[in-house]
């Protein structure tokens, strides 16, 4: 399934900046960065549970937030892109 993950991490403190980096790093490990704090992750339920656990143990729920949007398996019908940096389709042809 495709999960869209967005986050908002409070960066007014140094600890916040560090959390932001950690959150971003985990997201990069699991999916594709489509915009600055927006990630598209093609995951099976186990991988999702893993990522969710990791992210939720990094952030501070009092100041930061995470949002998961579940786009399912027919996610291609639910996404439209306009403008620069199209990204790649993880289920499509991958050739470099």
């Amino acid at each position: 399934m495709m999960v869209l993950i967005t986050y908002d991490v409070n960066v007014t403190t140094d600890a916040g900046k560090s959390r932001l980096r950690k959150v971003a790093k985990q997201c990069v490990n699991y999916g594709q960065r489509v915009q600055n704090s927006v990630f598209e992750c093609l995951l099976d339920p186990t991988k999702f549970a893993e990522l969710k656990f990791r992210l939720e143990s990094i952030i501070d729920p009092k100041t930061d937030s995470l949002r998961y949007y579940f786009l399912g398996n027919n996610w291609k019908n639910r996404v439209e892109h306009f403008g620069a940096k199209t990204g790649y389709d993880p289920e499509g042809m991958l050739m470099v």
Partner: protein
Amino acid sequence: MRRLLNTLYVTMPDAYLACDGENVLIKAQDEIKFRIPVHNLEGIVCFGFAGASPKLMYLCCERGVALSFLTGYGKFMGRVTGNVSGNVLLRRTQYRWSDDNNTAVRLSRRFIAAKIMNSRAVLHRVLRDHPEAVDQDSLRRAIQLLAGMPKRLEQAKDGDAVRGIEGEAARLYFTHFNELLLSQKDDFQIADRNRRPPTDRMNALLSFLYTLLTHESVAALESVGLDPQVGFLHRDRPGRPSLALDIMEELRPHFADRLAVTLVNRNQISAKGFVIKENGTVLMDDDTRKAVLTAWQKRKQEEIVHPYLEIKIPLGLIPYVQAMLLARYMRGDLEDYPPFFWK
């Protein structure tokens, strides 16, 4: 059932594969050209001299991603393998069966019978769909001859007899192969099946597709814990994935041959995309190779109902399913190995 994951094809000659955390990176000129999480992949195929960092190889081994290196023209050069996976008892059974003439011949007969019936089905399909474009009489005769061969196979007592019938069937099939071409007939004529090096365009195309199929079959066998090098029909030879070649036999007509024909008939590739060397070797150029890879990836995602399991699966999982069925047969969970028959 396992999910069909994606395969990453690297065709950029100056690319370097590296890893960053859980990501596979492709770098060129010190710039990151591509980045993808490793859990989205089940294989990486590099064409040409793409380099790879040891850390990436480590990651691939750890995650069971098949990393193969091919020359720019699709000749297999090597692959990175991790731990020998699976069950030692299963592999021991495989070795014992491979050494036992009766069992080896029995399995060989199954692979080849399916191959013959599948190539017959390919010829039959063109006779049915385009009766006006083909030499109906000779095609009908070939189909009939092929249909009779599995019965003769049953009498084959040893590997050589099976190989003999296989050779006969292959010759018959490839002499009628040109009938499958509905456009670009002159440019893609095949005289006979040849390789190392291929001397006409169709042979070059077929060899390339067979290499891709080998990559998938080896990975499939590894993932169910069988040893891809110990086969039943193909004899042991250092570096040869004999068992992969065995289970490929039944898949060739439907997977590779039909795809080759489709590419030509739909004009997705053209004669201009092939380079003919001084010594008669015929090779594909970069754009043609890309077109073939794209078509291959697309074909793998087409869904079919598996004739034995009767469930709908993407075509790309068929090598895996066949490997799994073979392993189950060896474990004694199945009474016999059901080869893949294309209906």
